[in-house]
């Protein structure tokens, strides 16, 4: 699995939430996530959906402010994420 780099830009409506931005190839997109999802400036995104040259189509864990789930990001924005084991 993989994770994508995000920048924290504000608080959400609930104390557990933060607003983050993801650098997509079309510009920054913001979304609200749970603070627990934030891991040293990254959030888990599962596996990329498509690859096109240096860009990956990824699905974000929540809808962005502009209503997108899937966005293209440069591969430099991604890092590997170890699989979590079930109990």
């Amino acid at each position, binding site marked *: *699995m993989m994770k994508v780099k995000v920048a924290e830009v504000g608080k959400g*409506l609930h104390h557990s939430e933060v607003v983050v931005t993801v650098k997509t190839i079309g510009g920054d997109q913001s979304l609200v996530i749970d603070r627990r999802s934030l891991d040293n400036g990254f959030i888990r995104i*599962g*596996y990329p959906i498509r690859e096109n040259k240096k860009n990956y189509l*990824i*699905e974000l864990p929540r809808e962005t402010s502009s209503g997108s789930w899937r966005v293209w990001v440069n*591969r430099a924005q*991604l890092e590997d994420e170890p699989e*979590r084991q079930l109990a």
Partner: protein
Amino acid sequence: MILTDREIQTAIKKGAIIIDPSPSEDAYSSTSVDLTLDPYLTIFNEPIEGADTIIDPSIKKLHIEKTLERLTTQEKIPADGFIFKKGQLILAFTKEYIDLRLDTKYAARVEGKSSLSRIGLAIHITAPTIHAGYDGHIRLELVNNGPLPIRLRVGMPICQLIFEQTLGTPDKGYHGQFAGQKPT
């Protein structure tokens, strides 16, 4: 396929579904689990007469969170409850944190409780889907459609969560295409 109470509990034991705090035994029905109301509400400010604000969702740069921050006020539900006026829309959260593990093929729907529906309380506005991989408290859009004000209390059962198993693994949970690949 909808999960039964036993399947939900098994998935929780395996860590495939996380609900924190854990629901009590009586929060379950045969095919759902009740979630409760968080203490904090987001309330829309009264409009100023003669200075109408119009939200235009088609504007690409519209930042919904910032817009909501400007148009609303956070309020903690007092000990004697919050009086929810008829016709009002408020945003609320479940007290419970939910985590639907992406690789375990679970999704869910948040739905109202019939006992509350009968007095006019709606808990979402056409957005009930909790997608596979979701984690966080569930946002609720509460509307009082009833004829009378409703007293909301912290921790009251406010909605029910119905879990479904997806048919197959979504693209983002399927590593076939990207097995062994690392972004470089």
